[in-house]
């Protein structure tokens, strides 16, 4: 047995490195290409909503439908009651609208929109503080959704349940071109650090940044 081993050692000497390289390449392919594909499930929105079309017909931009309620809380995606004003009957030729009227309006069912920017239950996010307090634009965090004519596919992490837009398109979690490419805690921290943001004073004893309870609940 020992002798056998020694023999092999000599004959397969050159292959050792080859196998090593094969191992590296295989795992790189799995890790960088196959794994991300497997990790996310893809879902289409129940209705392919055309933001651009609607933007043209409202006066108040995004806030026409995604508004702050009286108590300052954010209304999120519109409820059926807000759409029904125009869409109680089919308006045009669009099959998506037809679907909306037939399946939701006439059955009085709320549309189960998939929220790209849905934060987990542990997060408190004040739209009022950002829109009114910091006078920020919707685009800064949400990008140019308002100019889209079609809703992109909703991708969901199969393990964590997060929308892919939270962690970011980039699987390494490092590359970020636009401010809206990801919405992790670190992305919030870009502003919520004492140095770059005056209103975010050193409130946390531990991190000398904004306190935990500012964004956590």
């Amino acid at each position, binding site marked *: 047995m020992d002798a056998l081993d020694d023999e*092999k050692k000599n*004959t*397969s000497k050159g292959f050792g490195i080859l196998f*090593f390289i094969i191992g*590296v390449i295989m795992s790189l392919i799995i890790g960088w290409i196959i794994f991300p594909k497997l990790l996310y499930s893809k879902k289409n929105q129940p209705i392919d909503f055309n933001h651009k079309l609607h933007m043209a017909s409202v006066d108040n931009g995004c806030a026409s439908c995604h508004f702050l309620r009286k108590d300052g809380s954010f209304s999120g995606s519109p409820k059926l009651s807000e759409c029904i004003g125009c869409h109680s009957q089919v308006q045009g030729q669009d099959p998506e609208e037809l679907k909306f009227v037939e399946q939701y309006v006439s059955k009085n069912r709320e549309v189960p929109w998939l929220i790209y920017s849905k934060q987990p239950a542990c997060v408190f996010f004040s739209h009022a503080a950002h829109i009114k307090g910091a006078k920020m634009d919707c685009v800064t965090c949400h990008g140019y959704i308002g100019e889209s004519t079609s809703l992109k596919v909703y991708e969901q992490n199969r393990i964590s349940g997060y929308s892919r837009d939270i962690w970011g398109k980039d699987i390494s979690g490092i590359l970020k071109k636009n401010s809206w490419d990801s919405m992790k805690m670190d992305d919030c921290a870009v502003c919520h650090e004492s140095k770059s943001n005056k209103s975010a004073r050193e409130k946390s004893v531990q991190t000398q940044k904004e306190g935990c309870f500012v964004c956590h609940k």
Partner: protein
Amino acid sequence: MKVSRRDFLSLGAGATIGTALTPLPWKLMDDVSIWTQNWAWTPFPEDGEVTYVTSTCTLCPGGCGIMVRKVNNRAVKIEGLKGHPLNQGGICLLGLSGLQLLYDNKKRIKTPLKRIGKKGEEKFEPISWEQAISEVCDKLSNLRLKGESHTVAGIVSSKFGVLNNLFKRFLTAYGSPNFLTPQSGSDSYSTAMFLMQGVDCNAGFDIENSSFILSFGAGLIEGWGSPVRIFRERTNFNQNGGKLIQIEPRLSNTGAKADKWLPLKPGAETVLALGFAHVIIKESLYKKDFINTYTQGFDKWKQTIIDTYTPSYVSKITGVKEEEIISIAMDFAKSSFPIAICGNGKDRTPESLSHSMAVHSLNGLVGNINRKGGIWTVPLPDYINWQEALIDDIAQNGIKKERIDSAGTKQYIYAKSLLNRLPEVVNLGKNYPINLLFISEDNPIYTLPNTNDVIKAFEKIPFIVNFTSYLDETSVHSDLILPNHTYLERYEDVSTPPYFIKPIISMAKPVISPIFNTKHTGDLIISMAKKLGGKISESFPWDSYNDCLKKTLNDKWQMLEEGGFWVNSTFNPSKAENQFKTASGKFEFLNAAISALSPGDIIKPEGDNSVFPLILIAYDSIRLSSGFIESPPFLIKAVESTILKQNDVVVEINPQTAKNYSLKEGDRIILTTPKGEAKTKVHLFDGIMPDIIALPKGLGHSNKGLNINNLMGQIEDPSSGFNICSGIRAKIAKA
């Protein structure tokens, strides 16, 4: 080419290094930890628009205003209604837990149920509303045809309110006198006031403005009266420098918060009250101008007091030291606005008439009646002004019959209803049998003493129809369960709660639409009446309960619908002289009616004291709901571990007594009374008199602890017929 083990090793090494250079392990590690933050089996409540609905809590007679926070269509939290005259934004723990009663899929009854198993077996089949109603109506019609309409009885939780009056009206129009309601301490107090002041009224206590409270066991912060209001007023009373003396065998929370806790032997309250009266008269500390001008029968009464209730005698009977009797009596009489209050914890059980009257005489002695800081006569609710029910011949025959409980007969002249007598009457087959029993929002199998007898009686009644939202002790013994909406899903009027000083009506409103296939009991009564036809139907000229409620409340409807309550805030008791409607027009310490009552100074607990050397008393705790509503999980969670340990109830015992039995904290014992036996543990407590042991009321549902009614019997007050039992003889042995 042969692949060797080494090559595999190389491949593995390469793969390991390669994998470390990809996001795979790191992202997985991160995602898995995020997974632990969002476990699917941990519920994450949906967010949405927040709205508030104002309503009234009807979980106890207190009638507090509540504000229910909703998120979209979910009720999320109950809070006290700010500005409500009773609770001023405060709320008790039962009120706070209401949503656990609303959203209890397990205990709530989701659809009409018909019994298919044996009684108590919890075997039911769901039936349709049509079937349910026609089954009841068929039974009712048959009984009427046989001329047995009086053998129908109805138990409802209270005599006030539109629903309960609809019930009463239904029974009357149908032809039964047997409208039964449970009694409470306020009934004894009202009766005492009726006898002494001649007014049929509610008693009101202006606690906040009084200066000295002499409480004979009233659980001011155990849930007595309208609990939150009393809590708040006690605080203000305390802050104003008021002095509270709590007289009871066991140190309750009220006792703990009192300026003095005065332990006395159970059943000796009347004697002690009269002992105080003795001192006040002897020391000439009574309000002479009031006595001289506004009272009658004082001299004769005084003589008995002076002769009999000397401090030494009273001390012997009550166990209270003579000097304490004297000093407390003097402090009481010297105080500017002293009130004497009798009670029994939450006051769900009445006191004897002699007790109530003895205590009320103390109030008479100090003349603290119908003025600030005193006892007020508050008018009974008067907003239900329906035309008399139409009575046909059969009904006429029926309602002429003697009530099954004999209330209002010569023997029980002052009683309007004696629900406590029902089990005995049924078991002994006295009067006549009950063929059909309605129960609405009550749980007599749980709340009446001597549970075994109650169950026996209920098993004898051939048909029980229960209007309730919950599967409880009584509903499992019912033949037909007609699920009512819960209080958060329905309209209901709530009239002046016990001991409040101003007439008030509050309104419970549907906070959310009914979540199960339930119907308002009021609607059912109306539809049953319609179905029975004839004069019965004509007696109910309303489309629905809501219609009836609206028409009844008339001009107050809108105010109640919007604001949640109506209060006569300017109400003040008129000058005392106008308030006494006795024959003499005065406050009567003694009159013919009073003299005719059988005396009952000392209440002896049931049982032979050679066999049962101890006395078991039942106590109330604000942390437990002891009425028909079962304590929801939050309440059970809030109960101390010295009261409930796992599923065992813990009995409180004085360390000295425990020593006699060589018992240590937590020891298991067997507790026996003439009525039953139970296994419990002991808790050594210095706040209880030696030779007395105590168990809480309100446990025993869902196998949590023990229903003390299993061990308790009844003591009938000879004067009123009320069950005035608050203790029973007992013995214990190490288990």
